[in-house]
């Protein structure tokens, strides 16, 4: 849909799993959900965060694919692996900084969120954004994004790698980009 953008606001997620269920309804990957619903810190909080494909401008998954199976369309959508080309090597699964691609070993095929390409190319919203009751997943025009105090951000810094994405996530207003260092998330022993 022209002029529409995808926004993820993890602070609005209520963990209802509607998006997971709706994604699995899709006829192109029936019964398999492409959405990751992450429990942030399950022992201490009920907070959850939905993770869809961020559709990078320079997609790492496609860069590392040895079979040339992942393509980024002119609309900026990074498509799921081409069935005829994917060799099931899991390079993309390991390389994606957001942890989006999923490997289906029984099919020897990687599948990932392609922003419901069958729907968005026919002027329909993605399944997950249609069903989300709390607007944690939104597919709207930028002017209609119901900003409260958040700021949509699409620049991520993973160590020295800077990733720009088509999908934006909502962050506090004083955060122009999201910096993540894998070392920060490695358990060092002192709980």
């Amino acid at each position, binding site marked *: 849909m022209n002029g529409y953008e995808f926004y993820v606001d993890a602070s609005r997620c209520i963990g209802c799993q509607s998006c997971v269920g709706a994604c699995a309804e899709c006829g192109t990957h029936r019964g398999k959900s492409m959405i990751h619903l992450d429990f942030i810190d399950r022992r201490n909080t009920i907070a959850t965060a939905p993770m869809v494909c961020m559709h990078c401008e*320079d*997609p790492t998954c*496609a*860069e590392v694919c040895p079979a*040339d199976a*992942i*393509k*980024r*369309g*002119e609309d900026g959508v990074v*498509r799921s692996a081409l069935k005829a080309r994917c060799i099931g090597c899991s390079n993309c699964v390991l390389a994606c900084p957001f942890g989006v691609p999923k490997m289906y070993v029984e099919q020897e095929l990687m599948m990932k969120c392609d922003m419901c390409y069958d729907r968005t190319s026919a002027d329909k919203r993605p399944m997950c954004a249609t069903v989300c009751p709390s607007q944690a997943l939104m597919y709207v025009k930028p002017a209609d994004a119901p900003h409260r105090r958040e700021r949509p951000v699409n620049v991520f810094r993973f160590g020295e790698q800077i990733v720009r994405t088509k999908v934006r996530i909502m962050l506090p207003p004083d955060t122009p980009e999201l910096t993540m260092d894998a070392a920060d998330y490695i358990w060092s022993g002192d709980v």
Partner: protein
Amino acid sequence: MSSLWKEDFSVQAGEDRYVQRRQFTKFLVLTSFGMFVGQCWILAKSLLHRGRTFPSQVVARTGEIPIGGVKLFRYPDPEDPCILVRISEDRFAAYSQKCTHLSCAVYYSAESRRLVCPCHDGFFSVEDGSMLQGPPPRPLPAVILDRRGDELIAIGMEPAE
């Protein structure tokens, strides 16, 4: 270093299918050059082929075959089976034994006075090897015979393959 393969296997779907004018011209030139080389090869081969010579080989003596009888021999190479037929008192004819349809061996039928291929019921004239009936697409190649005294000598094939 990796830019060359990145151009050919671009992540962007649009660039992947995009053919530059230079690439297209290169393709045309190389294809034309390939065809030119192929034509030269065919020309050289046909020029060399023209000079092919056949050996002289004594096939039989006139006395050893009765009228309506045959003799099998190999000509011009040991892998090429041929059949010699004595049609009448002083008329002999020899042909390649390989049917021009699927290379089954033909035999001479004295009753019908024709060369018969038993595989698919192909029939050839014993007079000149032309096809009379059935699936064969071309006449049988004939062996040119030369008679010297009572010896029959094969001196060539018609048409020369």
